[in-house]
């Protein structure tokens, strides 16, 4: 019975505990939001540092901006609302990266576009190279072999030696050991 009584008293405490947890979670959420949003903005003093990482002594902007950020988050403004307020106040350079709208989107698209184009070009080049006949079948090093003709059939022993030497050189270069 005593156990049941204690259990009932424990149940009475649950709403209070839940409220406490929710409050703590809310506090945690605010600091996490401030941290997240503060890392999406630059200090505008010209130091080129993230707002929450600006460490200039006596920086005339970062302290004020951090206070403004904390105030905006505490009064419950949405993430977008906070960022828009900072853009209105300090200009678009306050954001650490271009937005994903309008012309700014090109900033994000271009590297991936270049990647796709690059891969396409490499594959295309590889395809063309696989199909074409070699300009020369001789080795290419040392400035002596460009434009040499391919292997010849027959010929004197000296030309065989020369061919053998060329192929040895080629094998040496291409096998690496």
């Amino acid at each position, binding site marked *: 019975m005593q156990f049941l009584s204690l259990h009932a008293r424990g149940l009475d405490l649950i709403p209070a505990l839940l409220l406490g947890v929710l409050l703590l979670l809310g506090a945690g959420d605010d600091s996490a939001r401030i941290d997240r949003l503060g*890392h*999406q903005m*630059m200090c505008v003093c*010209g*130091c*080129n*540092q*993230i707002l929450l*990482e*600006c*460490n200039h*002594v*006596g920086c005339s902007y970062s*302290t004020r901006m951090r206070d403004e950020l904390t105030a905006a988050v505490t009064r419950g403004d949405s993430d977008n609302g906070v960022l828009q307020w900072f853009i209105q106040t300090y*200009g*678009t*350079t*306050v954001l*650490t*990266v*271009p*937005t994903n709208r*309008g*012309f*700014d989107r090109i*900033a*994000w698209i*271009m*590297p*991936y576009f*270049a*990647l796709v184009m*690059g*891969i396409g*070009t*490499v594959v295309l080049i*590889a395809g063309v*190279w*696989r*199909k*074409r*006949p*070699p*300009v*020369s079948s001789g080795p*290419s*090093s*040392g*400035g*002596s*072999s*460009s*434009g040499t003709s391919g292997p010849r059939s027959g010929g004197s022993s000296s030309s065989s030696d020369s061919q053998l030497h060329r192929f*040895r050189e080629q094998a*040496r*270069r*291409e*096998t*690496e*050991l």
Partner: protein
Amino acid sequence: MAELGSFVLLLALALSGYSFLAGLVALIHKQPGSERLSETARRAGIASFGAVFLGAVVLVTAALRNDFSISYILHHSNRDLPLPYKFATLWSGQEGSLLFWSLLLSGYGLVLRLRHKTDVRLFAHASVVIAAVQVFFLLLLNFAAKPFAVTQGAIPTDGNGLNPLLQYPEMVIHPPMLYLGYVGFTVPFAFALGALAMKYPGEKWIHITRRWTMVTWGFLTCGVFLGAHWAYSVLGWGGYWGWDPVENASLMPWLTGTAFLHSVMMQEKRGMLKTWNMWLVFGTFWLAILGTFLTRSGIISSVHAFAQSSIGDWFAWFLVISLSVFTFFFVKNRSHLRSEHKLESLISRESSFLFNNLLFVLACFTVLWGTWFPKISELVQNRKVTVGAAFYNKVTIPVALLLLLLTAVGPLLAWRKTSFESLKRNFLWPSLGALAVGIALVVLGVKPWNDVSYFYALIAAMLAALVAFTVISEFIRGGRVISRHTGQNLGAAMVHLWHRNTRRYGGYVVHFGVALVFIGILGTPFNREAEKEMAFGDKMALGPYTLLCRSYTQEENGNYSSDLAIIEIFNGNRQIDTLYPESRFYLASQQQQHVPAIRSNLKEDLYVVYEGQNQDTGRPIIKAHLNPMVSWIWIGLLVMVFGTVLSLVPNSAPIRATARDSVEAGVHVRPAPVGAGD
């Protein structure tokens, strides 16, 4: 002194101008006597080094003697500046750094001209190109950015002092390293343009420039990493790379230069990528100049940038002219650059180089794009935007991981084509090892599904392990073969192996260093930090450490006054260290600067910053960062430099052995060289 300095710079311009014009005339008019004219051009080029060197000596002497009648010394030095920093005055401002650039270029030119007998005609072409670039810099020094301009009005008794950010030991070596890299790429470019202009047969120019390129690349690598280390040790924000435009300017030629170091092997061995290599080496040179343009013109805002000045226009014109000249010769002589071989398989060393180059150039393009986008946005939509670290991290990390994958895979693929058996033999154990590393990290608590940065860190760790294991397995496999044939122990056999093909195995060591650098970088998502107003006896916990504020103190010397916090570091109940983060006030420049204190070990860095005092409460603020694995970045750099040095050592003579098996099989074969291919 100002008069002497100005005179020698004018003399250097005259000598370089003569070297360029006489050299050019001698190359164009192949008449009797042109060789003598060419020789006078060469000697004028050599003499120009003496003149520029004397100019640099005069400027340094003026700094050492506190000669504030020279405006540059007035603005970049002061009486109490420590001696090494007075020496560093040479490159700490706009005009001095241009003089330093010119000095290095004339130094490279001197070496090139002294070694002209290697190939007189090719070197004469390269010498003309070097002289042309030198003329540009000397024009700047004589007419646009004069290091010996005199102070107007009464001469102050003391100078304005050196920028506090530059008063750090690494600033004595970081800029020279970076400039040696920047300037050094002029040499391979000069040979490339010379070879293109004269339709130089074969790939000998590549052999000649190989060492120049590797040495230059080594310097640039050192410069970039020392810059990162300087940022980490001085700027006090706890990071080492902020994707600032000036940092980007140093990274871009490094990326294309690295691509060139790889793709040039395709040309040497297979006679392929000739056009690509021409453009790559030109691009590297051009990006080095572009980087200088960025930092000098003020066109892109940066904390590192030199004062805005009109010399940006000079650089812009130089960029246009150099591009035009190179394009002209390329269009004129492009038929000379046809490939000699076909691609036989997509699974081959050739393909890996193609993709490696694609990724390096793509990374370079991304950095260039991000650096210029604020300007492009301003032009197009009349508003500036910021392109910060988040952009670069999002876009470049996947590319960097793909490059790391190729670093592991590429060297083990054979030229022409690679069989499945060979793939299995080469990759099975390294892949299993990398997989084991990944599993171990997940078991230890890295949860890649929690955050994309953890995912990247896990992949980077596995790929770095793959690189390390493939390098180690290559050394062991090759060492065993040598050991079997020579009876040496495995260690000696691996040294023997390296000596037979220093570039290949030195390159593997560089790759190993790259893997270590990635291990250092992948700790970033796990960084932690804490900040607290700390009075005497206050404590702050961070990770396994407890920071106890023991006291604050002050120091002063003629150069700066300093507030120091005395912070005792505890791990558990045991005191393991005492750190002294500082806040300095430089008297001459009237600027404040934080000097972080760093406790570094292989596992992590404890990075403590004295951020000054809370303006409301007057209480000192201490910020601490716990940055895992950072030391591995600097260790990786040392390994990369070591690998570069290893790859510069000449190969041992090829072992000449009779092909006994062939003889036994009844085929008569003359003794043939084996090994030493690279």
